[in-house]
């Protein structure tokens, strides 16, 4: 290498090193992983863009990789995801080691249990994935009869996130089978960012009802609640067909209700609202609202749900909701699948 070229490179590294470089030592998992790959493959620089707004920039200086830009929320978040992923891989390896010590009979039984669990779990996106955007994301799922007919699903588009909570006809295995059909249609229908939410959901119902051919033709049905959030501006839209939501902003809860009949008649409006950091969203199936109290005299209802959410502490955890809900329910058994998706922006 010529002296002038070498000076140039040293000059570049000095330009970026002093004012912005926040980490010189390869200490965290993300930097170590990136460093190893960049050094092994002789890559000079890597930039990761998040929704084309924020970014992380790594640059190699001879045998050292430095994070030149990235001391931001996205960096910490990516770091947490990477650590969680590594733990998951370790946990799977441990599970596999545990299976090796079982007898043939135990293995068959274990296999059947695992199959049932896998089918059940395959319907849900892991809650940890939702935490990529939300400060907190939790799911309360209590089927009336396992595996159940409630579901939630979400999809990230560039800049926007769509979240859906659904309640399909029936419980147990029947509910699950209908859920699988509905989810297949949903995933196909929402593969691209929806333009007009009210039209998209009406079109979806048309597709669902077009599938009905048998005599029990009202079985293939569901109630839905949809929110779409612009991750840059935090502007959100809600529409539903029976799956309602409660929004708590500044400590005050408000119910957003919907009905399928109104939606199918074109009378269900989209609700637009502005979110801010710390806001809480609760989307829930009707099994929650239809829960009777301990005396078996009164349903929770949407007003009761608003009151319950108002009772929760600030920055609530799922356990706080479950404690309040259990106190309302007392000893009265549930009559339906109960699903509540709890999100903190």
């Amino acid at each position, binding site marked *: 290498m010529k002296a002038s070229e070498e000076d140039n490179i040293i000059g570049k590294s000095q330009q970026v090193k002093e004012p912005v470089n926040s980490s010189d030592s390869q200490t965290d998992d993300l930097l170590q992983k*990136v460093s190893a*790959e960049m050094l092994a*493959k*002789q*890559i*000079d*620089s*890597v*930039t*990761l*863009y*998040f*929704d*084309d707004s924020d970014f992380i920039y790594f640059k190699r200086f001879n045998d050292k990789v430095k994070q030149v830009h990235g001391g931001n929320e*996205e960096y910490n*978040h*990516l770091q947490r*995801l*990477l650590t969680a*992923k590594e733990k998951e891989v370790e946990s799977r390896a441990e599970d596999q080691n545990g299976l090796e010590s079982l007898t043939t009979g135990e293995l068959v039984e274990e296999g059947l249990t695992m199959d049932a669990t896998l089918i059940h779990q395959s319907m849900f996106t892991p809650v940890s*994935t939702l935490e*990529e*955007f939300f400060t907190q994301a939790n799911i309360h799922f209590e089927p009336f009869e396992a595996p159940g007919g409630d579901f939630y699903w979400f*999809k*990230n*588009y*560039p800049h926007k996130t769509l979240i859906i909570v659904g309640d399909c006809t029936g419980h147990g295995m029947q509910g699950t089978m209908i859920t699988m059909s509905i989810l297949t249609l949903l995933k196909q229908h929402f*593969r*691209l960012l929806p333009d007009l939410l009210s039209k998209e959901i009406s079109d979806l119902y048309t597709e669902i009802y077009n599938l009905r051919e048998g005599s029990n033709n009202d079985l293939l049905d569901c109630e839905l609640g949809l929110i779409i959030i612009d*991750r840059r501006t935090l502007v959100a839209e809600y529409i539903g067909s029976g799956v309602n939501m409660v929004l708590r902003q500044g400590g005050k809860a408000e119910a957003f209700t919907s009905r399928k009949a109104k939606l199918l008649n074109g009378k269900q409006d989209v609700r637009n609202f502005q979110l801010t950091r710390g806001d809480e969203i609760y989307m829930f199936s009707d099994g929650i609202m239809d829960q009777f109290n301990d005396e078996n005299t009164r349903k929770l209802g949407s007003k009761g749900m608003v009151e319950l959410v108002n009772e929760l502490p600030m920055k609530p955890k799922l356990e706080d909701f479950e404690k309040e809900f259990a106190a309302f329910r007392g000893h009265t058994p549930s009559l339906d699948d109960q699903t509540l998706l709890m999100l903190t922006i």
Partner: protein
Amino acid sequence: MFKKFAGVIGDVRAQYLPDGSVELLTLDQVSKEDFGSLFDLASRVTRIVFERPSERLVISMLTTEMYLKVTAPSSSYNIGILSNITSRILDKLRMEIKAQ
């Protein structure tokens, strides 16, 4: 799966990147690319740009199932221009998808 976009890809490559390459990848394929597994790990990662001594490369999310990979020789393009070209190609492909 990507055959229907072959015409658009061929046109934009000829227009913007005569000495580069433009490819569409599935999530499985992109996971095998350098740093491609980050798309699967964190869906908010929408674009990865990296530079090697001989080439510059941009991988960008078109949909969660479809990714655009644009490669060009370092001598012909700086990274800003390549990113800009990638955005133009993405816009054209999105229009194509919407029209279908």
